[in-house]
């Protein structure tokens, strides 16, 4: 259970939200409304106030790196610090399994980062976060650069995660995607979160 109480920070809040294990919340809203800032605040990547608890454990009592392994944020455009894809994964065997799930083979481990397409980066960024089996996934438009086939593949993977008890908060402008992911829908405007009508 992820419990967010009075979360506020730069241009957002106060926000309250509760998600049980396996719940999906889809958030939409105009550009600049604070959707990404909301996800970043939950992951504690920006200074913020309020209480965030996971399975009853207060975030404030958990070292930040440990918290982010449990509550994993995937940015719309994530960063890469090494030359090759494989250098970003510690457990190569787990990485190969994950690459298969996102429609890329083992050979992708040797791919050079600058030569990846935006869509490949998006899928690999998601795989890199999911490999640690976080309890909560915070996804910022994770399929915005994908074609229909790959989008379906990722949605299927997210659905499996959801069935396994992972809570997901996803920023998406695609109403049908929210329906496919069986998500509760919310709208974030001017930093305030409201259940979508």
């Amino acid at each position, binding site marked *: 259970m992820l419990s967010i109480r009075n979360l506020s920070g730069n241009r957002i809040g106060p926000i309250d939200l509760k998600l049980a294990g396996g719940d999906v919340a889809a958030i939409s809203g105009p550009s600049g409304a604070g959707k990404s800032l909301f996800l970043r605040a939950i*992951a*504690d*990547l*920006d*200074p913020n106030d309020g209480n965030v608890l996971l399975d009853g454990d207060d975030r404030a009592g958990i*070292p*930040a*790196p*440990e918290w*982010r*392994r449990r509550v*994993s*944020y*995937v*940015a719309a*455009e*994530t*960063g*890469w*610090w090494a030359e090759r894809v494989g250098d970003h994964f510690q457990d190569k065997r787990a990485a190969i399994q994950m690459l298969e799930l996102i429609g890329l083979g083992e050979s992708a481990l040797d791919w050079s980062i600058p030569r990846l397409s935006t869509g490949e980066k998006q899928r690999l*960024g998601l795989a*890199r*976060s999911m490999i*640690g089996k976080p309890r909560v996934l915070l996804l910022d438009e994770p399929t915005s650069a994908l074609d229909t086939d790959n989008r379906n593949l990722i949605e299927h993977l997210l659905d499996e995660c959801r069935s396994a008890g992972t809570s997901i908060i996803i920023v998406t402008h695609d109403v049908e995607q929210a329906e496919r992911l069986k998500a509760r829908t919310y709208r974030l405007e001017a930093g305030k979160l409201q259940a979508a009508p």
Partner: protein
Amino acid sequence: MTFIALGYADLVIASLLLLFSGALSIFLKLGLERQIGLAALRMVIQLMLIGMVLKFLFQMVSPLWTGVAAAIMIGLAGREIMARQKRKFTGWWTYGLGTSSLMIACTIVTVLALTTQIRPDPWFDPRFALPILGMILGNTMNGVSIGLERLLSSAVDGRTVIEARLALGHDRTQAMKPLIRDSIRAGLINIINAMSAAGVISLPGMMTGQILAGVDPTEAVKYQILILFLIAGSTALGTLSAVMFAARRLTDSRHRLRLDRLGPIRP
């Protein structure tokens, strides 16, 4: 060999070269003549003044006056570090970081050299302490300045990468390590190059000065080697501490990248 004293007429003759540069600038419409003239005037006034100040300090041989002069030199070097940064921390942090790193590194190295290697009597004799500090300070200032500049600009440019690592559960040391390493390397590259080129491509200034003053070249070389060791040690210590402190300030105890602690970019 004896020391050849220069007369003011000698300086006037040398200044003709500068007049020639100015004339060239006017002829080629480079617009540099005013800058050249002002810089030369500033150099002459500053050096004449420092000559008088040093003469006073050398006569006093006072720990207080030597300390005051050293503190002013370090303070001005800290200000120069701040002035050279395109990106700065808000408030006094950049000045504080630069100046404290310089103070720690240069004081340790200068005192070490004065008390264990050069050993003048008294150890703080300004005739030795201030020139040694000056040489160490100038080079350490460059290292600290370059190191800080590299760290702050690459943290801004590499924000996505740093935050990707933090989001994956890396701690701030892991996330910042490549930047810290690159920044320290950038800060040290000048002194590494200076040591590699010394005696082959360039004859270092201090050694040349001593030789012109009549010192035996082998003795001058020993002094130069000592000075290069001191500069390298101080530059490494100063750059390392400045970059590490700055990396700490760029992040917080919750392992967040705090670019909000930087002011706007300077054009």
